[in-house]
């Protein structure tokens, strides 16, 4: 049995307001996850309410320094996911509640998930 799912793409500028809207409607933050797909990094935010899943997705250019606003002002627990995205993908998240400054994951290779090597 699989849940009905969609991954609607939204502009980064509207992320905070959309997330706040979901929080106000009682949605729980399930996860934030990034995926390096070709020239872009897709970041998916997943929420749950009464066992229903809802997703939001933003797309960032993989080149240069991808940036995102933190959603810590809405969901305080986001700091773990945001530090993870920074340490694995090199995404700069502005305004994290707790910034481990690149020491959340102790990896020998910096940003190991950022570039796709074959």
């Amino acid at each position, binding site marked *: 049995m699989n*849940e009905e799912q969609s991954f609607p793409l939204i502009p980064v500028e509207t992320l905070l307001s959309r997330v706040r809207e979901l929080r106000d409607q009682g949605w729980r933050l399930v996860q934030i996850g990034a995926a390096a797909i070709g020239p872009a990094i897709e970041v998916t935010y997943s929420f749950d309410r009464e066992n229903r899943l809802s997703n939001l997705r933003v797309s960032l250019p993989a080149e240069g320094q991808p940036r995102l606003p933190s959603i810590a002002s809405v969901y305080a627990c986001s700091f773990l996911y945001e530090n993870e995205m920074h340490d694995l993908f090199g995404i700069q998240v502005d305004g994290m509640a707790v910034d*481990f400054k690149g020491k959340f994951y102790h990896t020998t290779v910096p940003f190991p998930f950022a570039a796709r090597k074959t």
Partner: protein
Amino acid sequence: MSATLPRTIIPFGPQHPVLPEPIHLELAVEDEKVVDVIPSVGFVHRGLERLVERKDYQEFVYVAERICGICSFIHGQTYCQAVEAIMKIEVPPRARYLRTIWGELSRLHSHLLWLGLLADSFGFESLFMHSWRIREKILDIIEATAGGRVIFGSCKIGGVRRDIGPDALRTMLRQLEEIERDMREIVDVFLNDGTVKQRLVGVGILSKQDAYSLGCVGPTSRASGVRQDMRQLGYAAFDEISVEPITRTEGDSHARCSVRCAELFQSVDIVRRAAAKIPDGEISVKVTGNPNGETIARTEQPRGEVAYYLKANGSKNLQRFRVRTPTFANLPALVKMLPGCTLADVPVVVLTIDPCISCTER
């Protein structure tokens, strides 16, 4: 005039006698009282998620199972469910029931392991040994039915690799009767013994509001009154075997212990109902082709909801595999539970979220 106590920062872990795995807490204490905490992990991150780029998607079940040595079966099952959802594979009913049985046996051995560790954390060594003695009997059932004690290796995309015959099912149910009797004895001590209650009641309180807003899952959230159990999504055979979330309202360490104790008997009941209803038939279907698409699959592990994100482009290697483990979701709760506790309570409170760093460092 009130005197201000000096604040001291105490590093707790990543190596600590009570912690079997590396987690670090930066504890700010005033005298013996914890006033602030910052949890961190990441000391042994394995980068397993990127292995999907090199492993065939069907072989990757073996890697998914090895994310964790305690909830290994449900990791493999969740991965399979995600691939099956993308490829629209219909798993035979008997396989769905077998997955349900093995999943609940996983929960039993995980909760019994946790109860032992909890007893060990407050120095009740005989209770620790009894918990693990009973767990050993569950491991014997798992070995007899799946072939492995920790890594089952029995789940595959499209179904399961091996069946449990009628004789083995009857033997398992007989053994569960004895295990249930044993569990009642230790649960009575965990929930009613005066010394145990002294260490757990009113310690590390997490309110319902905090549990929900911090994204907590599993027994950690249910002990605070959040009715949330992913088995209600109806995966495996849970569309035919109903599950009511077990909740408490106190939100303290005793409530988290109490939820897990009650879930032991709930799991035995689910195994019984599954064994009574399991249909005859095939245990797997042939899988051909490669997945193309993306999905998030969720199941209820012993520690709570796990979320698997998979993205595939039609080749034999997935593009992205991401796991959000229950421990990862429960770590922020420590920020609310620990302030106000004494330093001596820290190991107990940390253990009550049942941290699995092996999962988290996937």
